[in-house]
């Protein structure tokens, strides 16, 4: 037991160190002007996607529920954040504090949405849960497309399907949130990743996290020893929603306008791809996959029009390769040989 704990500790430490090291390197390169402009522009979205991937991994990997509407929570966070930062611009002039406030409120809004969706929906299982989360993501997108929010002399006006509001429009229906002050920074993105890691990794290694994994592995057995399904599934789902909302705030504050179309079904799928390619239940894998796959289309720029085609082919080939029986056998044989040599060396030293 003790050995396992120390293994977990090392594993988590490696993840933290990896993120911190990557941040330091990238930040130094950025300061030195070694990154191209398009790559610099990608830094904050990468951070947001990493947070999205980690939080979705909590739902898909740890809690074992397939969610296809994760981008919905991101958009709730993004639009809440846009309204909060605009309405607090006068009260809190410091952008960092304003950003933190926006993240907290955006996270809470997404979390409330997570409870509303989660309580009824988590009674469903498997593919039905997937379709309902998908449906939910589409509903949010549709509703935001009809939403108008304006601000006049410190008061907020909200209407549905009716753009004639007093004052300055903050959210303008299908055109999305306008005039966002771009206050996201790469450092904030990094801080959010670390915060997400602390939340998710501690949750995973806690009593609650073990209960979630027990439910994932065998629901009936877990229930029979007194683990409540709804409580733990909901805990994972809502935590993930809050984190996704915060990622949404980070993402939105990087652009001057943002539309609900940014968070459609494709975005949910994109994040799911990060989780699956990084390894289901593997947090470090999610981080790496999210970072690489967000840059990949940029790196494939030399292919021009063929860029997304190559992306699709890479995706299919990776899935085929990682699930290939022969490759798997070969891989485990290789691992075994490495391991046995290691052991032999150790044995030799003892003798």
């Amino acid at each position: 037991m003790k050995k396992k704990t120390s293994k977990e500790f090392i594993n988590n430490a490696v993840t933290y160190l990896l993120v911190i090291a990557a941040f330091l390197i990238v930040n130094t390169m950025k300061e030195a002007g070694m990154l191209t402009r398009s790559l610099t522009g990608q830094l904050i979205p990468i951070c947001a996607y990493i947070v999205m991937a980690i939080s979705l991994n909590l739902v898909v990997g740890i809690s074992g529920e397939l969610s296809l509407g994760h981008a919905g929570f991101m958009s709730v966070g993004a639009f809440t954040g846009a309204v909060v930062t605009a309405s607090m611009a006068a009260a809190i002039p410091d952008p960092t504090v304003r950003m933190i406030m926006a993240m907290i409120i955006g996270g809470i809004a997404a979390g409330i949405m997570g409870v509303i969706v989660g309580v009824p929906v988590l009674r469903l299982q498997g593919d039905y849960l997937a379709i309902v989360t998908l449906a939910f993501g589409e509903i949010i997108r549709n509703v935001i497309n009809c939403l108008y929010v304006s601000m006049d002399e410190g008061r907020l006006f909200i209407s549905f399907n009716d753009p004639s509001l007093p004052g300055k429009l903050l959210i303008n229906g299908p055109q999305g949130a306008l005039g966002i002050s771009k206050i996201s920074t790469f450092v904030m993105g990094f801080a959010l990743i670390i915060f997400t890691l602390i939340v998710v990794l501690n949750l995973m290694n806690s009593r609650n996290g073990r209960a979630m994994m027990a439910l994932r592995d065998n629901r009936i057995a877990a229930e029979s020893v007194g683990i409540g399904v709804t409580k733990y599934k909901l805990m994972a789902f809502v935590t993930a929603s809050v984190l996704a909302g915060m990622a949404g705030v980070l993402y939105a504050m990087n652009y001057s306008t943002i539309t609900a179309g940014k968070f459609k079904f494709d975005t949910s799928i994109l994040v799911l791809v990060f989780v699956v390619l990084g390894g289901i239940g593997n947090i470090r894998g999610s981080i790496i996959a999210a970072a690489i796959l967000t840059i990949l289309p940029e790196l494939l720029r030399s292919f021009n029009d063929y860029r997304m085609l190559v992306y699709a082919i890479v995706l299919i080939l990776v899935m085929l390769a990682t699930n290939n029986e022969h490759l798997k056998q070969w891989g485990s044989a290789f691992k075994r040989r490495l391991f046995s040599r290691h052991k032999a060396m150790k044995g030799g030293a003892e003798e």
Partner: protein
Amino acid sequence: MSFLSNLINGISLGSVYAIIALGYTMVYGIAKMLNFAHGDVIMIGAYISFCVTQYMGLPAWVSVLAAMLVCTLLGITIESLAYKPLRNAPSLAVLITAIGMSYFLQNVALLIWGSNPKSFTSVIDADPIRLFDGQLIISDVALVTVAACILIMIGLTWFTGKTKMGRAMRAVSEDKGAAQLMGVNVNLTISVTFAIGSALAAIAGVLLCSAYPTLMPTTGSMPGIKAFTAAVFGGIGSIPGALLGGILLGIIEIFGKTYISTELGDAIVFAILILLLLVKPTGLLGKKVREKV
């Protein structure tokens, strides 16, 4: 009268959804996978039909046959290249591969036909039927769509019930391992299922674009998602369920758009799906499978 004409529009749109949903539901029933590339097969079918009529100048029925042929081959190829190697892989891996396939098809279409929308000319060229002194107009496309849907349903019911291959399909969907032990060629059965599903997708694509004539590489994705919703609505894996779900969904969508809000039409469809699943978690006609410990 407007109520009746909306109802007819709804049934017609629903019939298209039902034909697409049949493809989803059959593949799900047999291979237990959500084939996300199905919506894009629809789009390819519509493009093939478009090319045959526009560039080759051949009659409409030839273009439908050509679209069916190409989509059937496409379906079989996709299955054997991308899904067959993953038969024993976790379902999420198959799902991601299907999504990759969907991106692939969309981008191939983008490269071949470009991103500009093409305006699809209807393959059906007949006069609409006018009833009640021209107050109620039933378009030719709506009639043909509903008729095609009914014919396909009858055909499929006969096929799965009476033919040897149909029985093999039902056996495989019930228990793959046992079917194999009884001498059913599982791989062939799955290939045939994909072939039928893709041929139906081609028909659906042509009918869809005859009614809504904008053709783009992303044309198939939203109807694909809606049809998937329809399949779940009716109970995924059930063929009558796909028909019922598709038609109900079409009616709900048209009525929601007309009487409640145009922008919220899709949201209403999805909200009703969620409500239904909460009351009846396996869909309208889905079978409840008891879990054994």
